[in-house]
């Protein structure tokens, strides 16, 4: 496999402009002759489908939900970054670029990151024009707040529901194109394979989740916008249906998987309360703007927080990182919280939590200001924990939240399968080893509105397309394989449910491939996962039929893929003998417990090639060079 990043030459601030000019165009009259499939309707998928429809392409879009608006982007809370410099605090495209490369611990492609920063301003313009009700100040102009990993205020927000409002904006643009007839939406369809004809991605196989019918669709290009794989850990902040099936099956068909071990643990989630728990709830990182994180100075202090006097509290982030304080990046905040709890300073019934305290902010700004900023988050916390955060500090603990890894893509967002494009969280591209807050929404919309519509045109204009129809043998074969797998899942008739296997996989992943990783644990995971997978294929129990709405069957298919992906993540984590961003190898840390990178040996993207189930994957390397932001120890002190 050859990895060609196709990064254009020239100075960084000119790369995208030059590249855009060099991209071939499709004649406006010819656009409708090209069919593009977009899988997923989150921020990246909906914005891509809408923009491609506006351009005149014939777009088919698919979701396993009933409506495009249900995609998990809707749950993002805090905000979206753009260096508009409205706060007049010295922000610029270059600073956002710099912060993102540094925040990603020097494991992202510089040219991609610069482009992301460059187009981010247009996203805000676009969203405002769509009617996204961003927060404004009394002048009527847009308001900003600051976020972890940055010292400027560049985050635009719509209360604690920014993701919802941005997704509804993209959904409205998509709805307009559906009405115009340029986009056709297929609801309740789960993509189960990509179809290759002469090595090109020419279509997909889906299952109609209501009738169980296995269908095929042909196109000139396929775009995957199917999100991340955080649910690999079972308990995460992801929506229940979020899964890796689309990208995993594309991987098995030849798409390289980039940096799978780069998973992000979010520091501010509501702690787990019991075994029955189905998911963890995230509280936006923006809370760290006004909330102060602390633990009691005394180990095992069981007093209620309000009876612990100020001098007996350890505001450990402010103590260790005086310049960034509570606003250190996510990986740092998460690791420190775990360390505090590991050392016996944790609070709450399980001892796996730290306090996030708003008392100072409420005194300083008044309750109404805090309510305006975070009202819905406070309500949510109150509802779940039965405690009022206006009166007692919140209890928080880190949880899996985002995956920086994903399918490898070149500068055009195309995977190693020609014609298969990957956008949003599903690709590996812009965040390196750690994503900064308010950057996921930015990347999803940048890819969908302003990057893919150009780059896919170049592919469509230059590639040769031998006729491919859903009746062709390659489609029939892929369809047959999917049907066989569905049949197999139903026919095992063992004793354990998909959920039970899933929970067990999640425990292995969290324990050995979670926030802190070491060689011994990873090797253990690499023997446990294949064993569990074997048991799965012998003892799985799926009730119901394949020709019906069957949530058990859907889950079984997704768990089957997680059981393979988990192994790849462990392989990647084991091979990367360094700590960087979200990947923390306990063997590689500084004396102060910070991540210790090894730039000499690991300054590359690990792009893994599938070699067969249970076989050691093949490692390909895309070297990373840093011409502008010179790698240094990432310090937030």
């Amino acid at each position, binding site marked *: 496999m050859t990895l060609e990043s196709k990064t254009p030459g020239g100075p960084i601030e000119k790369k995208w402009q030059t590249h855009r000019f060099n991209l071939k165009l499709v004649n406006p009259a010819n656009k409708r002759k090209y069919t593009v499939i977009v899988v997923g309707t989150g921020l990246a998928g909906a914005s891509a489908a809408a923009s491609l429809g506006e351009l005149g392409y014939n777009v088919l879009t698919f979701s396993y939900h009933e409506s495009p608006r249900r995609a998990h982007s809707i749950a993002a809370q805090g905000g979206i970054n753009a260096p508009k410099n409205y706060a007049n605090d010295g922000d610029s495209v270059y600073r956002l670029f710099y912060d993102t490369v540094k925040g990603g611990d020097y494991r992202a492609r510089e040219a991609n990151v610069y482009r992301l920063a460059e187009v981010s301003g247009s996203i805000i*313009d676009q969203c405002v024009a769509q009617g996204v009700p961003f927060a*404004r100040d009394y002048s*009527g102009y847009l308001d900003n707040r600051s976020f972890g990993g940055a010292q400027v205020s560049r985050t635009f927000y719509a209360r604690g529901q920014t993701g919802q409002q941005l997704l509804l904006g993209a*959904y409205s643009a998509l709805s307009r194109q559906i*009405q115009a007839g340029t986009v056709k939406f297929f609801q309740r369809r789960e993509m189960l394979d990509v179809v290759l004809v002469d090595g090109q991605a020419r279509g997909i196989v889906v299952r109609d989740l209501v009738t169980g019918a296995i269908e095929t669709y042909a196109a000139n290009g396929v775009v995957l916008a199917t999100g991340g794989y955080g649910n690999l850990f079972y308990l995460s902040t992801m929506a229940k249906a979020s899964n890796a099936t689309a990208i995993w099956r594309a991987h098995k068909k030849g798409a390289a998987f980039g940096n799978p071990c780069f998973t992000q643990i979010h520091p501010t989630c509501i702690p787990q309360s019991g075994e029955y728990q189905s998911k963890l709830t995230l509280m936006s990182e923006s809370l760290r703007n006004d909330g102060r994180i602390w633990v009691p100075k005394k180990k095992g202090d069981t007093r209620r927080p309000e009876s612990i006097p100020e001098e007996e509290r350890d505001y450990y982030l402010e103590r260790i990182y005086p310049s960034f304080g509570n606003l250190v990046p996510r990986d740092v905040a998460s690791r420190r919280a775990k360390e505090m709890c590991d050392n016996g300073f944790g609070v709450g019934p399980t001892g796996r939590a730290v306090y996030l305290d708003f008392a100072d902010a409420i005194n300083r700004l008044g309750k109404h200001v805090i309510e305006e900023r975070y009202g819905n988050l406070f309500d949510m916390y109150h509802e779940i924990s039965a405690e009022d955060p206006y009166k007692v500090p919140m209890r928080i603990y880190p949880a899996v939240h985002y995956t920086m890894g994903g399918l490898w893509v070149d500068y055009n967002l195309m995977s190693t399968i020609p014609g298969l494009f990957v956008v949003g969280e599903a690709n590996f591209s812009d965040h390196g080893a750690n994503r900064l807050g308010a950057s996921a929404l930015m990347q999803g919309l940048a890819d969908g*509105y302003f990057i893919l519509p150009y780059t896919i045109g170049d592919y469509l204009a230059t590639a040769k397309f031998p006729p491919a129809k859903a009746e062709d043998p390659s489609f029939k074969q892929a369809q047959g394989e999917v049907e066989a797998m569905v049949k197999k899942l139903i026919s095992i008739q063992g004793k354990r449910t998909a959920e039970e296997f899933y929970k067990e996989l999640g425990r292995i992943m969290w324990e050995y491939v979670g926030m802190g990783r070491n060689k011994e644990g990873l090797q253990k995971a690499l023997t446990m996962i294949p064993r569990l997978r074997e048991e799965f294929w012998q003892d799985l129990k799926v*009730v119901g039929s394949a020709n019906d709405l069957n949530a058990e069957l859907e889950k079984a298919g997704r768990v089957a893929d997680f059981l393979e992906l988990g192994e790849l993540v462990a392989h990647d984590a084991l091979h990367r003998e360094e700590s960087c961003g979200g990947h923390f190898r306990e063997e590689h840390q500084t004396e102060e417990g910070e991540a210790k990178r090894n730039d000499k040996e690991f300054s590359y993207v690990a792009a893994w090639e599938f070699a067969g189930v249970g076989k050691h994957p093949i490692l390909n390397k895309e070297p990373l060079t840093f011409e502008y932001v010179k790698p240094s120890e990432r310090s937030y002190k």
Partner: protein
Amino acid sequence: MDFKLKIWRQKNREDKGRFVAYEVKNISPDASFLEMLDVLNTELVKKGEEPVAFDHDCREGICGSCGMVIGGRMHGPGKGSATCELRMRVFKDGDTIVVEPWRAKPFPVIKDLVVDRTALDRIMQAGGYISAKTGAVPEANAIPVPKPYAEEAMDAAACIGCGACVAACPNSSAMLFVAAKVSHLALLPQGKIERTERVLRMIEQMDEEGFGNCSNSYACEAECPKKISVTHIARLNREFLRAEVT
């Protein structure tokens, strides 16, 4: 906590459907309503029975997927939360809880508690947008929006499209849903240009889908998980009247 459940089971669109009684035991008061259903479903699967089908996804009250009638209330007892946010601590130990799908003609049942709400998508497609083509827009701060308008627009835009308002309404009206979008966009200068067409087309589609009219019962506001106010229906009516006479 232990509960007796009476859950609506319906194999598919054509099936007549019926209530089936179940029991669940040892449920934590901190568990969510859907986690309680997960426990029931695991037991059913273990016994080789089909689990209860229900739509759900984010489980934090924002995606709008979940929604069922619990004890006669949309999304269960309490105000301002979706089914997934409901905690078992609001019930009493030993309670009998009746669980049904949304009941409205434009929302046919697909299976058990899963209904088809695509009628709402079609209303949005009819006009629930500002026609801003990608790239063809002014700088974000070029048009200031007075804060009170922006805030009120946000109140309306908070709608999660769950359909509780329709299910709660004695006329199966979708007026609160439509009003939330019309109001959100009408309050913003960016949305003013297409206001006439928008309201006419959305209302036309709403009628075509078979949703009823508003008769001021206010049940929608009472049951809305996002507490969207009926004052938006008043604005919808004004917008509609204005559009009719211009």
